[in-house]
């Protein structure tokens, strides 16, 4: 895709010539068209809205298919994004459509960080495109462009005004993506309420400086219809994949006890307007705007962050290569410095640890000495006691021996006396 299809202003040194006959380069647009049909188109839509507000149903209704989505729970702890890619075909035109849905948006108690995952997703797509662009060997014509081309923001039909979360989120996104606000489940708002609601929403967006996508007015063939449509924003839509018999046709509708809401009836809702604007008329413009406005802004911010400039302090043009070399040098110097710092810190820490360990060792040693002494003292006292005990024992045994001897002696003395008596008795 050409990066700038801006209408060219007549150059000053170039003379306009008139042709004498038919040359044939008026077939150039056709050549371009044939080439793009051959390549196929790609389109990425991001749908942001509360759980259950009807994002998946609207996508199904818009593209007349069943994208196989399942109901999400209200109890997700954080906002997540789910992207699904489909290949569609209508007549001979192939479209690679990526639908990204938010999961759990608006369900948390604290929604201050709810916008962040969305912003991160959009930036990631820009970043991967930027990386591809900056590569040495790149293949941009084959690259699957995943950048978000349109963002449908689903507004809850309260009938009063925008919710605070809507305002905060749209403000964060208006410089990154083409925002198309839609009023979801619009079959709950009567015509008069709808008129007031739309005015209130638009005035709130304007007064808070939120820039939503405006349908382009520069091309005369579509300027008129786009102007009218711009006045109908935000579109009040109703989605349905069920068919109801009305008259003698089967139409996409929702059947209530009090009537049937026909999706494609312009009197009932703005679905047809949305389909026409989003798909039939302005799809290519959305892609272009994403590339020339939002992507360029992202690229500029990113490169400025890295320190690249188009002109150096003396206002002389600086080539990318010079800046790149300068950055590289800086980076290497910084790396070296950090390495030295770390090394010093490491050495210091090792010294500290060593000192600590030595101190601990010394303490243990002194403790050990002390305990050893205690132990020796105890042992000495115990030895002393043992010695005393032994002495006691030996003196005791000596006394016992002496006593026994005395006893034996006295016994023999008595025995002799008896013998003497006995002997004397005989005589």
């Amino acid at each position: 895709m050409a990066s700038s299809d801006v209408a060219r202003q007549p150059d000053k040194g170039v003379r306009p010539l008139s042709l004498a006959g038919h040359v044939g380069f008026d077939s150039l647009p056709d050549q371009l068209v044939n080439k793009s049909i051959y390549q196929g188109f790609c389109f990425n839509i991001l749908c942001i809205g509360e759980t259950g507000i009807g994002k998946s149903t609207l996508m199904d209704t818009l593209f007349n298919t069943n994208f196989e989505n399942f109901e999400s729970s209200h109890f997700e702890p954080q906002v997540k994004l789910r992207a699904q890619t489909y290949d569609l075909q209508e007549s001979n035109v192939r479209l690679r459509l990526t639908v990204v849905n938010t999961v759990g948006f608006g369900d948390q108690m604290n929604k201050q960080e709810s916008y962040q995952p969305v912003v991160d997703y959009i930036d990631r797509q820009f970043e991967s495109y930027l990386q591809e662009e900056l590569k040495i060997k790149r293949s941009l014509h084959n690259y699957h462009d995943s950048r978000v081309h349109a963002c449908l923001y689903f507004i809850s039909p309260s009938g009063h005004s925008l919710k605070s979360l809507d305002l905060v989120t749209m403000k964060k996104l208006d410089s990154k993506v083409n925002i198309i606000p839609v009023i979801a489940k619009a079959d709950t708002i009567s015509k008069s309420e709808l008129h007031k609601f739309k005015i209130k929403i638009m005035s709130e967006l304007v007064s808070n400086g939120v820039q939503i996508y405006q349908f382009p007015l520069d091309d005369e063939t579509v300027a008129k219809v786009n102007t009218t449509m711009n006045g109908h924003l935000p579109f009040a839509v109703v989605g349905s994949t069920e068919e109801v018999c009305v008259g003698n046709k089967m139409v996409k509708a929702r059947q209530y006890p009090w009537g049937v809401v026909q999706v494609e009836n312009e009197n009932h809702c703005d679905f047809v307007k949305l389909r026409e604007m989003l798909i039939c008329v302005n799809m290519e413009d959305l892609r272009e705007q994403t590339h020339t406005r939002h992507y360029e802004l992202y690229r500029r911010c990113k490169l400025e962050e890295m320190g690249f400039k188009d002109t150096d302090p003396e206002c002389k043009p600086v080539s990318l290569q010079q800046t790149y070399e300068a950055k590289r040098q800086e980076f290497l110097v910084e790396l070296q410095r950090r390495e030295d710092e770390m090394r010093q810190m490491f050495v210091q820490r090792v010294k500290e640890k060593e000192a600590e360990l030595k101190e601990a060792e010394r303490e243990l040693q002194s403790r050990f000495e002390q305990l050893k002494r205690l132990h020796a003292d105890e042992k000495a006292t115990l030895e002393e006691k043992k010695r005393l005990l032994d002495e006691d024992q030996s003196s005791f045994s000596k006394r016992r021996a002496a006593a026994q001897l005395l006893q034996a002696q006295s016994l023999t003395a008595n025995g002799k006396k008896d013998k003497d008596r006995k002997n004397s008795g005989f005589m």
Partner: protein
Amino acid sequence: MENSSSNNRFRSAMFNHDDEDQDKEYVGFATLPNQVHRKSVKKGFDFTLMVAGESGLGKSTLVNSLFLTDLYKDRKLLNAEERITQTVEITKHTVDIEEKGVKLKLTIVDTPGFGDAVNNTECWKSVADYIDQQFEQYFRDESGLNRKNIQDNRVHCCLYFISPFGHGLRPLDVEFMKALHEKVNIVPILAKADTLTPSEVKKKKIKIREEIEQYGIKIYQFPDCDSDEDEEFKQQDLELKESIPFAVIGSNTVVEAKGKRVRGRLYPWGIVEVENSAHCDFVKLRNMLVRTHMQDLKDVTRETHYENYRAQCIQSMTRMVVKERNRNKLTRESGTDFPIPVVPTVTESETEKLIREKDEELRRMQEMLQRIQDHMITQKDGH
């Protein structure tokens, strides 16, 4: 003696004279209900209804439709920008309405700002505090010396509006109801039901009832009807219980439908009639709230929620007194005998850790020494 007996005879003759005109067994207390009716009409009734839910769900319209008045004249709605950091307010509107001689003092408590800010953590707190304040005030009045004119500002019923645009209950709904289900009768309402087809309504009601049970939320239970009631009444009662949450549509504008003038909403594809039971449950809600269960709501508030609050209040008061007494006891006893657990702080310095390690070592060595000593003593005894 004779005189008194004759007096007695005279008196009883008078009474016997009256009784003979009516049945011999007639006493007369069958007129009690009439007396209650008369007195209550004279006293008048009061009812406090709270409505809660995100803004834009039709709470004000429904209140106006329920009581056929315009309570919300000239109210100011905030812009989205102002609502980013909005806090929850509590507003009260009191009106006196009368019907067939019966006076009703109706108070509507509104909660503007609920769920509107970007950060809604604990947004239910001011609502819970308000309800507690009313209980506290009644408790104080009831315990006071002069109880002649107690004003009952307790909230009798809370209509909680659930958004029909989601798949069921949201975290905010669950938290709010769990915070208040033991303080007030919660009646869940499925708001703006004209966005749902009949099959979607049925599915959503079942889902919400399941989730209410799953999260243990105690909503207001209709009293079971006695087994001796007739079949029609029982059928109605069953239908009522299966209608929770009530799928309602509100409107105060009158439109022309099929030649009749009804309250409804006019769409290009048809007219939604508010009082048509095939279109929404408005009639069921109104009957339940105003015509049949108003007194029961007040009774449950008085007997269950208020009594719970009162019991809790008294218990916490006695607990505080006991705690004070215990705290005094603690300071008298010596601190070293208390095994106060050492709570290690997150940032413990290196030296403290070393000291603790060294203490551990010392203890271990002392134990070892003790063991050696014991061992030697036993050896000596052995000799």
